[in-house]
């Protein structure tokens, strides 16, 4: 029961910490004896101790939850633990596969496979390139080879055009003279 009828006064500085420990039963024996002697004559410290006894239990929450709450709590936690275990098992399996010695071993095997692959497939790449060429139709390949011919033909067309222009020009100058 709270009886708030006196003003709060501090305890003696030298004893305050020990009073707190004394309240909790943690004050070591020599200090406790000294404190008990002091309490007989000091009203402030006695009042301080009374306050602790009156107020500190008020903060504690005595929470008497029903058994149903704890049953539900336990079941919920069991589900979470089971899920964690399942996840842990999957992870353990993965980790057991990836052991420290397995990493360099796997690297060496991959390196070997790559080296063998490069060695034995070198000719295959060239054949592939050749066969690729063979697949191009004959007409297109001929046309590609004769590209210079077409360029020359373009040039000849240009010369013909220049000659025609020249003729037109000379004809017009002749008619002007006449």
């Amino acid at each position, binding site marked *: *029961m709270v009886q708030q009828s006196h*003003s709060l006064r501090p305890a003696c500085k030298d004893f305050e910490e020990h009073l*707190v420990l004394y309240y909790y039963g943690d004050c070591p024996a020599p200090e406790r004896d000294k404190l008990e002697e002091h309490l007989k004559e000091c009203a402030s410290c006695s009042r301080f101790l009374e306050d*602790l006894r009156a*107020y500190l239990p008020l*903060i504690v929450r*005595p*929470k008497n939850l029903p058994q149903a709450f704890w049953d539900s709590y336990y079941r919920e936690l069991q589900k979470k633990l089971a899920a*964690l275990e399942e996840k842990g098992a999957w992870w353990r399996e993965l980790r057991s596969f990836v052991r420290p010695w397995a990493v360099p071993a796997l690297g060496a095997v991959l390196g070997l496979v790559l080296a063998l692959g490069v060695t034995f497939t070198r000719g295959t790449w060239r054949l592939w390139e050749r066969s690729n060429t063979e697949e191009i139709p004959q007409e297109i390949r001929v046309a590609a080879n004769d590209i210079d011919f077409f360029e020359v033909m373009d040039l000849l067309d240009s010369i013909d055009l220049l000659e025609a222009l020249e003729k037109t020009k000379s004809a017009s100058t002749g008619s002007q003279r006449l």
Partner: protein
Amino acid sequence: MFHGEDSPPDPGDDDLVAMCHRGERQAFDVLVRRYMHRAYQIALDFTHDGEEAKDLSQEAFLRAFMQIKHFDRRSSFYTWFYRIVVNLCLDHHRRRGRFLRERLDGRNTEPAEEKEMAGAPSTPDQEAMAGEVRRRLGMALDGLPKNQRTAFLLRNHQGLSIPEIAKVMETTEGTVRVHLHRAVAALRQSLTEFA
């Protein structure tokens, strides 16, 4: 619990931890049943919220389950486990600090659950006075530095001894005594204006 001559006594925490190390899953269930009430209560003292307390305390068990193989048994299981709970609560408090402060500042009436506290007063006046004292103490407690608050909650609410609190908080017993003293002094100071 009463044990007949044929029934074996409940295994101690150390035995249960050793069984966990051997992969005996049921041993951990016994530890859960043994500590779930206290884990929940600590989390509730820190959060003032039943759902959050449940989540945090269950999370502490999950972490303990994952880490128990690395627990070297140099300290007791419950000291080790309390440390997990307290650290989770402090992390949670840090993350939610602003929200909690706002909620506390805006709190005009005490939550319903706080009305169930110990020491039921006999008259309406005394009831009102006790309610006000609790409210002030609760607010002062929430405003304490985290180390003082942790030391106080573990001693006042959980009944841990000073050496046990020192192990949970990974500090010296002297430091715990100082935290506890300062916490109590601050709480008492919060009532000065009310007196």
